[in-house]
């Protein structure tokens, strides 16, 4: 049959009109069906579907931000974060042959049996096998190819200087946040903030599109300290040697830049290794120079004498009746172990006479003495912003009884930190200004507060220099090639409100006297090797630290190299 011919035979073909109408309706229904579906998918059910779609290819990834670095004033690294790997396992997914178990245990340095028991506990989803291992070890773990064992990147903080600056820098916790010391104090600058980002990933895990940044990562800023790592090291080394030699309980050394108040070194002993804190006692972690208070003893006398000088109550050569070493105030006896009938004001400092200092204190109004101690920075924080810094105790002058005023003159009944004491001596250096202490490197020279007139400051410097001369309490503090000045201190310790036969020996001084560059404060807690005088225990540490620091800083000599003149046997024992 031929359709073509049939077609032409019935041409033109006439179809019934209803067929077209039905077809039109069917198409229309189809169109509406599609439209309805579109509205359903794109409008009503959109959220659900979008969510499902996102779940398949859209991922939120964390953009890590690492913690800032701590460096010294010359850019030497003191603390830095570097990524390490932690090995974790999901015990339910782990299938381990005994041979693999053995290999894994040896790579991780774990006990084989302990590892097996850990992995047998299938009730847990997540267990750390070992935290913070080196990238090399992590690579070896991954090459074992054990199912269910994975790596997780973490940051770990390293301290290349080890125990030398441990208490100063402090440390961070597992999450890389500061917990102690400057790590805690400068957390706001150092801490990084991880950001997150929404991306689209393909089947192989490659990022194919950056959708949106949910929060921008903020990297931690680097912090540059005022510390000089070489001076820090030599201070620590000398302190360690002295504490061990004196069989002392502890010790601390502070080195300040006399012109700016920057801390060049701040060392404590005993110390600990911050890179391995497995067995560290809380006592070793304490920054004694900043957080511990002690009664300073005679290192406070210069402040009493300077007040009396400034007010014109005495002159440097005024003779004071020192009562043959025994002086009664309010029913209590103040005594000198080197009794003298009389001493000049200058000799009171040189030989550290308690009676002389007490008499000068009693010439002053309590309020005046209080004011000058307060102006010297006692009883207030030093400005170092170190966490846990002690402000010390300087009681209100209204509550002083005469005996308290007298003992205050030679540093009893007042408590200070070593950093405070070092800072207070800035008022005796060249410009006589009390500087704020800074642990961060300063860009601009700081402005201090002038406490005494230039004349008083110059007289005090001469008196303090006589302390290290023959006939003074600290000839052992002398440094070859430099003129130095300072004051010894030896104080009984308080236990349950009573003075006991335990001592704190100290020495605070500055050098070179012609143009003071550094202040060094040394404190030795409970020396136990027969000697406890500041002039014998602490002064040699000052001499070593000051001498080496001056050479390190290339300070020109202001004295001939053969200026050390006292035979050590002639040390005048100071009053306690």
């Amino acid at each position, binding site marked *: 049959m031929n359709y073509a011919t049939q077609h032409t035979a019935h041409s033109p073909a006439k179809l019934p009109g209803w067929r077209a109408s039905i077809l039109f309706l069917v198409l229309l229904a189809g169109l509406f069906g599609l439209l309805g579906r579109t509205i359903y998918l794109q409008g009503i059910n959109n959220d659900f579907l979008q969510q499902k779609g996102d779940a398949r290819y859209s991922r939120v990834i964390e953009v890590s931000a*690492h913690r800032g*670095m701590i460096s010294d004033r010359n850019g*030497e*690294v*003191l603390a*830095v*974060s*570097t*990524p390490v790997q932690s090995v974790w396992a999901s015990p339910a997914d782990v299938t381990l042959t005994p041979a693999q178990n053995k290999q894994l245990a040896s790579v991780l340095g774990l006990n084989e049996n302990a590892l097996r028991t850990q992995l047998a506990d299938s009730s847990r989803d997540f267990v750390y096998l070992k935290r913070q291992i080196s990238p090399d070890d992590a690579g070896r773990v991954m090459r074992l190819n054990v199912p269910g064992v994975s790596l997780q990147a973490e940051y770990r903080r*390293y301290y*290349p*200087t*080890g125990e*030398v600056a441990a208490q100063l820098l402090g440390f961070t916790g597992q999450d890389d946040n500061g917990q102690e010391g400057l790590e805690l104090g400068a957390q706001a600058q150092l801490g990084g903030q991880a950001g997150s980002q929404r991306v689209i990933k393909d089947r192989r895990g*490659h*990022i*194919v*599109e*950056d959708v949106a940044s949910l929060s921008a990562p903020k990297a931690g800023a680097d912090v540059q300290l005022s510390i000089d*790592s*070489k001076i820090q*090291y*030599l201070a620590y*080394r000398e302190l360690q040697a002295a504490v061990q030699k004196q069989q002392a309980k502890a010790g601390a050394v502070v080195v300040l830049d006399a012109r700016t108040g920057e801390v060049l070194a701040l060392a404590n002993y005993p110390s600990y290794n911050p890179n391995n804190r497995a067995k560290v006692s809380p006592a070793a972690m304490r920054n004694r120079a900043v957080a511990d208070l002690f009664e300073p003893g005679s290192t406070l006398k210069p402040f009493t004498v300077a007040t009396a000088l400034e007010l014109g109550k005495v002159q440097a050569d005024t003779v004071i009746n020192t009562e043959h070493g025994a002086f009664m105030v309010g029913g209590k006896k103040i005594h000198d172990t080197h009794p003298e009938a009389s001493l000049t004001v200058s000799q009171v400092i040189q030989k550290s006479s308690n009676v002389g200092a007490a008499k000068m204190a009693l010439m002053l109004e309590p309020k005046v003495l209080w004011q000058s101690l307060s102006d010297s920075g006692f009883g207030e924080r030093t400005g170092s912003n170190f966490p846990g810094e002690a402000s010390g105790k300087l009681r209100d002058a209204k509550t002083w009884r005469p005996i308290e005023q007298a003992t205050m003159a030679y540093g009893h009944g007042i408590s200070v930190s070593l950093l405070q004491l070092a800072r207070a001596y800035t008022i005796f250096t060249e410009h006589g200004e009390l500087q704020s202490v800074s642990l961060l490197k300063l860009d601009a020279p700081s402005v201090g507060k002038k406490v005494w007139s230039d004349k008083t400051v110059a007289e005090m410097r001469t008196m303090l220099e006589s302390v290290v001369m023959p006939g003074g309490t600290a000839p052992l503090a002398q*440094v*070859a*090639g430099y003129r130095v000045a300072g004051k010894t201190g030896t104080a009984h310790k308080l236990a349950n409100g009573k003075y006991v036969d335990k001592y704190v020996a100290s020495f605070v001084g500055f050098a070179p006297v012609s143009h003071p560059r550094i202040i060094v404060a040394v404190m030795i807690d409970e020396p136990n090797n027969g000697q406890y005088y500041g002039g014998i225990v602490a002064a040699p540490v000052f*001499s*070593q630290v000051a*001498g*080496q620091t001056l*050479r390190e800083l*290339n*300070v*020109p*000599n202001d004295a001939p*190299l*053969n200026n*050390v003149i006292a035979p050590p046997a002639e040390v005048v024992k100071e009053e306690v």
Partner: protein
Amino acid sequence: MRFSGNLFNALLLLLVVLLALSLVTSQHQARKTLQLLQQEKQHALQMEVEWGQLQLEQSTWAAPARVEKIAAQYLQMQRPKSGEVQFIQPK
């Protein structure tokens, strides 16, 4: 009129096809470039990590305690004693 209308439609169709193709290529290009960017970012991160490690290594090797120990033990050097160093003022 009718002829030019058809031609116009054909041109538009061609344009649509071309644009569609260029969209596909540029999308592809964008993804490739993004991948490169990701790689470079990863690289930068790695370099930063390595820099930190090298700095750490440097300061560990150059730690004064270590330098002093080596100088004293292997090179038989000693610190100058007090009074053995003199500073000279240049004229």
